[in-house]
């Protein structure tokens, strides 16, 4: 069930009304049932796997808390079980191919083939596995008590707004919210609706429109060169941002309407002035999870530069692998790690240059240039992320660098890449709206609060404009294959 589907438009209001209508005692059960229904809409079989996983985490949590001698054992078993499922379903093919290649080099033959196992990757498994693992580690590290209420654990792992694509919830943020039943708060509901609507706008008007050009060029990259590919690459950078941020906004908005607070997952990442800042603003719930459960346990930046660089590379290679079981994802992760390592290595030189040339790093121009440079680095890495394989990514880059055909912006070629002149016009206007939204966030202006504090005429006008902009300019309909959110694939 996609957020931008008719089914969800029926599902959510029913859940919402039921949630506030039912007595507080059964609200959690109601939400849990709704979450299972939401998940089962994709695949009933994999929802059984989810239930097994929840049961295992619940029991493990209690065992770790009660046990004195076997705490570590229970922790390892639980992590191996959860991560093991993820590994088998998501990575067995990838590692099989590696082993196969090694075997071929050694002149040996492998008798088993994972391709014939017909494995189905359950929706959201990468997300809820991390969530469950984080909870169990927190219990082990005694950062929190094991949850005794099964419904709470089940709801924490399967909460429908976040289960398929995050944000990855943290037990200490979410579980306490289940203790106190949420009261209906009109303002919170309105804020949630507005955020959900903005998410829909990002997804349907911007991301899916950008996808038309991106898919056209990337899927036929042999036929395109130079700026044609560069435009598609820039568009992809914007697409993946709008696509994923839209999902997060809709998830947070849905949760907010139900009275839950979920931390933001994106904080204007393309306004970052360095790659490391970008990763503090992009997919925050994953970055912070990797920081807290991998980077810091590995030693973080406490054991010298070399150790820090190693830890950074490990975290980003894992991040790449988490996004997809393919070399292009691994390379993408590695490249982002490498950017930061190089950035740190070159930091003294940069400082010297700024001193010698008396560059004011706080000036707006320098900040904008740094943003642009960071965007270029990140966007270049996205090419590996978007391509179907590492070799394909290299071919795309080769085609991009082959020709300096800047005239495509003047001779009308730009309008032949999948989006007409009118479509590009709409896209440009939508991107201006996005820019305004991001700028206000960057300068800590609560745009939602501003809108909600206006008089009813202004407020409703904004609502209607938002609704009808999505309905008219949104990419959907019979001829449109409702695209999944990009992060569903992870």
């Amino acid at each position, binding site marked *: 069930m996609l957020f931008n589907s008719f089914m969800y438009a029926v599902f959510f209001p029913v859940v919402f009304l039921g949630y506030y209508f039912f007595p507080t005692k059964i609200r959690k059960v109601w939400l849990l049932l709704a979450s299972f229904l939401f998940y089962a809409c994709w695949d009933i079989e994999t929802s059984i796997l989810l239930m097994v996983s929840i049961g295992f985490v619940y029991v493990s949590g209690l065992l770790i808390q009660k046990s004195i001698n076997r705490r570590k054992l229970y922790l390892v078993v639980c992590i191996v079980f959860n991560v093991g499922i993820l590994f088998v379903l998501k990575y067995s093919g990838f590692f099989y191919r590696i082993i196969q290649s090694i075997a071929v080099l050694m002149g040996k033959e492998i008798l088993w083939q994972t391709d014939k196992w017909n494995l189905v990757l359950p929706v959201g498994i990468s997300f809820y596995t991390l969530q469950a693992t984080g909870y169990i580690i927190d219990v082990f590290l005694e950062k929190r008590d094991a949850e005794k209420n099964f419904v709470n654990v089940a709801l924490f792992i399967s909460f429908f707004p976040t289960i398929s694509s995050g944000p990855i919830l943290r037990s200490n943020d979410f579980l306490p919210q289940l203790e106190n039943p949420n009261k209906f708060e009109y303002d919170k509901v309105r804020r949630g609706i507005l955020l959900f609507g903005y998410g829909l706008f990002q997804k349907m008007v911007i991301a899916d429109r950008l996808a038309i050009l991106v898919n056209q060029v990337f899927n036929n990259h042999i036929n395109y060169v130079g700026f044609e590919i560069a435009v598609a690459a820039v568009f992809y950078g914007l697409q993946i941002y709008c696509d994923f941020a839209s999902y997060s906004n809709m998830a947070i908005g849905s949760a907010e309407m139900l009275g839950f607070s979920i931390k933001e997952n994106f904080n204007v990442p393309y306004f970052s002035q360095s790659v490391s800042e970008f990763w503090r603003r992009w997919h925050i719930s994953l970055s912070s999870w990797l920081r807290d459960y991998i980077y810091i346990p590995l030693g973080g930046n406490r054991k010298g530069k070399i150790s820090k660089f190693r830890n950074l590379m490990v975290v980003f290679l894992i991040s790449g692998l988490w996004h997809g079981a393919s070399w292009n994802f691994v390379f993408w992760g590695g490249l982002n790690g490498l950017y930061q390592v190089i950035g740190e290595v070159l930091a003294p030189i940069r400082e010297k240059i700024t001193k010698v040339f008396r560059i004011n790093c706080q000036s707006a121009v320098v900040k904008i240039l740094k943003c642009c440079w960071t965007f270029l680095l990140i966007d270049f890495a996205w090419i590996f992320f978007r391509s179907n394989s590492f070799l394909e990514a290299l071919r795309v880059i080769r085609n991009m660098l082959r020709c300096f055909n800047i005239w495509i912006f003047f001779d009308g070629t730009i309008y032949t890449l999948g989006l007409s002149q009118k479509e590009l016009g709409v896209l440009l206007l939508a991107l201006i709206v996005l820019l305004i939204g991001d700028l206000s966030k960057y300068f800590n202006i609560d745009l939602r609060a501003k809108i909600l504090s206006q008089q009813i005429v202004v407020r*409703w006008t904004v609502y209607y404009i938002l609704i009808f902009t999505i309905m*008219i300019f949104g990419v959907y309909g019979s001829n449109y294959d409702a695209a999944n959110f990009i992060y569903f694939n992870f």
Partner: protein
Amino acid sequence: MKVKLKILLKLVVFCLIFALLYQQIESLLIGKDYPVRSNLNESFTPYPLASKLDGFYDLPQNSVDILFMGSSHIHCGINPLVIWNDWSITSYDLSADQQDFATSYYYLVEAFKTQKPKKVVVDVGTFFEQQQELSAHFSYDFMKLSVNKISAVIGRVPESSRLKMLFSLYDYHTRWSELQREDFEYVYAAPKEHRFNGYFAYLVTTPIIPQTNEYIEDTGELTDTDKYYIDKFYELCLENGSELVFIKTPTAIGNDWQPRNNAVKQYIANKNIEFIDYSFDDRMNFDWNTDFADVVHMNIYGAMKFTRILGEDIASTMTQSSISNDESERYCANYQYFTRLVKNYELTQIQDYDEYLTTILSDNNYVAFIVGSSNIALQINYRDIVSNENNQWTYLKVIENGQYIYDYVGDVECAYEGIIDNHKFTATSYTDGNFSNILIDSKEDLTPDGYGINIVLYDKFTHQVIDTRNYDIYMLQMSVG
């Protein structure tokens, strides 16, 4: 509690305003047209698809005595204006492209909301289990949202397409990039009159070799759905005091429907429903070379013949319709308009230059602008002038009220300017360049800009430019000579 009531009230008002805005935007964006071949309807509406049902809704209440329903066979085959002219009976052709029998039932429910027809004539040529998405759009896009429409969609449309039929913005929202001035004008036009009362005047002519129409005794099978809707039709007409008549329109392949027709006849034997099968009716006297657009669809000439025979059977025994003078005048004016369009169409089919001019001169409503391009000298010196040294001649003639009101053949640039129906027409013949100008309101150049003589023909009756053509007299004479 008070706060909750206030929120609820706000929600209701918000939804009402939303519904209002949605309805306006959907009306604007909805596909009002679909590709159809040459027809007369486009002379009064760019949207033959939309105007049929919209026109019906805007009819005065209880002003229709016969309703015709069915598929495109009726849509192209029955002209209510002819029935009015011959028998003074009001009727409306409420058929639609691919409107199957069951869908006709829902149209009838809709029709009974505003009309009390004495007779309901339904073509039994199309029985489908369900409608395909495209034809369902034809059928339901312009039906007003009501319980009947929802029942129709549930009853006739595959489950996966039902919501799209009720909220058609889902399929049509991409039309924002195609919006034209006409979309806005159409949406805000009131009333939305269909000047042919639903009839689609097909102009295409295709010579047909008819199938040998030997009567087939075989009886086909009716499905439970077919029987269900026949019964529903019958009951609905009984309830509303209308006489139900089933017909089968004539086609060039009448045998194909025969087993089904026999089954229908058999099923309605005990019901008070008349069945007239025109598949084998010798009275039609069709000219198979001129009366059909294709094997199953009549053009304006075939429809004229069929409507007269059908009218003889259905309308001749009825008492004349009792309608207001305004409505009566509307019917008369529309009949004249229709015959005028047929005349104009026939004029545009004339190829011979002299015959063309003679016809224009014989009718006071035609205004013709005849302009030569500068190479005219090479061409017309064969006719009525002698070439000068430079071969630079201009040629401009204007016909109005059956006579030449401007007539110049010379060697200087000449122009004519006149106002017709509040439009300024400017025609210019130049000494240089192989082109001419015939401008309307100083903007749109209508000239075909060909060698020789360029003609633009305006009809003051229909207030339309009805023809633009070019005669390359030189080539014509060369080929003759």
